[in-house]
């Protein structure tokens, strides 16, 4: 054993656990618990995806297959538990989902992991399409369009817990999420996890130190399938319903976005991505029908300006923290945020007006209420104002960008001085 006990790591994990325990006590609005539950599920799913993309360098377009199949098996198992034909505690249902995810990970992994790079990505897409097609062909298992519904409250309550109230479900999900996070982190610290990085960086060299890259990819994909299946089973418990769209390519694309936005180069990146994307998706979709457009824009901006994701933005600031020059950046950042807010105000106004004019004007007329004001989208004035705000925001942002740059120049000088350059 290494001499140093990893206190720091223990601290990080304890803090994580504390946040997960306290979160539903802090956010008490009606939808908050449901959203937190979804975040927990998304975290497991996104981390399992990153076992492929970030750790082994496999770009998969079909990871929802394992999530979805795990969920369907879990749904049928839960129904069997309810019908008393299967004796299994609901709290351990994720093991059934995980087992299903693992089995399909083994099957599809065997087919796909002989390849890497673009061929692997294409085959994963093919498998996703094939499984989606199968879901239409076997309505008895996949439940057709309506999906499979189920009831998580089965049998007698154990110590008052029957998973009826959504807060109980949240804590079940949080517990599984925590265990899965630790398990997936631990995996990165094993010989297989380390060799996955080696295979990602240089599969050929891995061969000449004794490792078969295909075998490494296969094992990582199988294990990732397990964790995706666990997430799927938790989804079944949470919603008591699973439909075939959850294993389709849109769902697969979504988990890719989560991992990417959070940052695939860091273990915790997908956690941030899962939390943020889940929040944006449910928050935005509550307020606007154009949310997919905003979400797409957000993704675009991230790819263009922070291709390493939010995690890499955070690590970027580490030297500023170490040299105590972060303060130099705060004011410019605040200015940039204000300018960006103005820009977004103009943009959102334009998009919403356009949306109103195109989709609702025929039924309800051209007048709409936006940010608490009435405006007629058939007249030029609101358009001119919105466009003006957009332009002003853009100019402001370009102006403030200089201060951000000079702030960074200060940081760089301090960092170089600390290095003795």
């Amino acid at each position, binding site marked *: 054993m290494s001499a140093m006990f990893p206190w720091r790591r223990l601290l990080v994990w304890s803090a994580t656990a504390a946040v997960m325990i306290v979160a539903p006590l802090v956010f008490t609005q009606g939808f908050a618990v449901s959203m937190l539950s979804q975040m927990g599920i998304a975290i497991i799913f996104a981390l399992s995806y990153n076992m492929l993309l970030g750790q082994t360098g496999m770009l998969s377009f079909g990871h929802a297959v394992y999530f979805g199949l795990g969920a369907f098996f879990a749904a049928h198992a839960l129904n069997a538990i309810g019908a008393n034909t299967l004796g299994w505690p609901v709290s351990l249902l994720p093991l059934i989902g995980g087992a299903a995810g693992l089995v399909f990970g083994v099957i599809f992994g065997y087919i796909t992991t002989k390849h890497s790079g673009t061929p692997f990505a294409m085959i994963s897409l093919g498998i996703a399409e094939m499984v989606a097609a199968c879901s239409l062909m076997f309505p008895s298992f996949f439940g057709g369009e309506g999906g499979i519904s189920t009831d998580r409250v089965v049998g007698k309550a154990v110590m008052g817990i029957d998973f009826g109230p959504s807060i109980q479900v949240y804590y079940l999900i949080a517990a599984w999420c925590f265990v899965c996070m630790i398990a997936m982190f631990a995996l990165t610290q094993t010989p297989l*996890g380390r060799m996955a990085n080696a295979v990602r960086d*240089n599969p050929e060299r891995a061969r000449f130190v004794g490792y078969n890259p295909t075998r490494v990819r296969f094992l990582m994909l199988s294990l990732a399938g397990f964790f995706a299946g666990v997430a799927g089973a938790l989804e079944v418990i949470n919603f008591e319903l699973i439909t075939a769209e959850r294993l389709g390519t849109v769902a697969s694309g979504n988990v890719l976005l989560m991992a990417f936005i959070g940052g695939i180069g860091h273990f915790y990146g997908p956690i941030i991505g899962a939390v943020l994307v889940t929040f944006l998706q449910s928050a935005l979709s509550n307020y606007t029908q154009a949310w997919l457009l905003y979400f797409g824009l957000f993704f675009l901006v991230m790819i263009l300006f922070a291709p390493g994701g939010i995690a890499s933005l955070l690590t970027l600031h580490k030297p500023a923290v170490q040299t105590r020059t972060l303060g130099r950046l705060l004011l410019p950042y605040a200015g940039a945020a204000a300018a960006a807010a103005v820009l977004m105000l103009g943009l959102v106004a334009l998009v919403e007006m356009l949306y109103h004019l195109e989709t609702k004007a025929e039924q309800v007329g051209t007048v709409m209420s936006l940010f608490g004001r009435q405006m007629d989208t058939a007249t030029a004035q609101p358009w001119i104002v919105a466009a003006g705000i957009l332009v002003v925001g853009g100019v402001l942002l370009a102006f403030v960008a200089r201060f951000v740059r000079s702030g960074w120049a200060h940081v760089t000088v301090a960092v170089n001085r600390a290095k003795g350059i």
Partner: protein
Amino acid sequence: MPAALELKAVHKSFGKTAIINGVDLAIEKGERHAVIGPNGAGKSTLFNLISGRFAVTSGSILLNGEPITGLQPQQINHRGLARSFQITNIFPKLSVFENLRCAVLWSLGYKYSFWQRVGGLKDVRERADELVGMIGLQKRRDTVAGVLSYAEQRALEIGITIGGGADVILLDEPTAGMSNTETADAVALIRNVTVGKTLVMVEHDMSVVFGLADRISVLVYGQVIATGTPQEIRGNKAVQEAYLGAEVE
């Protein structure tokens, strides 16, 4: 006792172009053997065939008397053969220590284990750190390999190659592109890490070749035109005409 490495009538063609035209070669256990020859003679191709990177077109290759023809590179590695590359081939995003750890994991029996914490494996850590010391990169232990200097990367390349404890080592131009002092260091390193092992080395620098090798084979147009001790090779007429000529004098 079988030869450490034996090639029998090995041929290799890429499409219609024959690159290796019937190579027979036997390298004894514990021998330091240099393969020399002009550019494009097929030396690297020969290494690629031996190490399983390419499949032979015909002929057979034996490692310690056992056929290894047609095996995958990792299978050949498991039988005790390791190689370095003429063009540096490391894990550029991993640290020096991590590169070497990857090189030792298999040989210490951890294979694809996902139930052991690599940081807790004392033998792995000690062996990897021993290698860091052997290749003289203690100060660069935790540096990402991609930013090392050329000579440091070449040293790491050798470290990765010997890390798995293979007893037959192939080094492809280990000193190419190095300054005189760097070359001297590299030669000392090679001498040091191949004690008790069989070494096959492609090398253009004749002082390195004549300083290190017990025997030399000369490869020209995919054929071995001579094999012998440094003295024999120096005195060989055909070799002088085909290749050595001016360089030795």
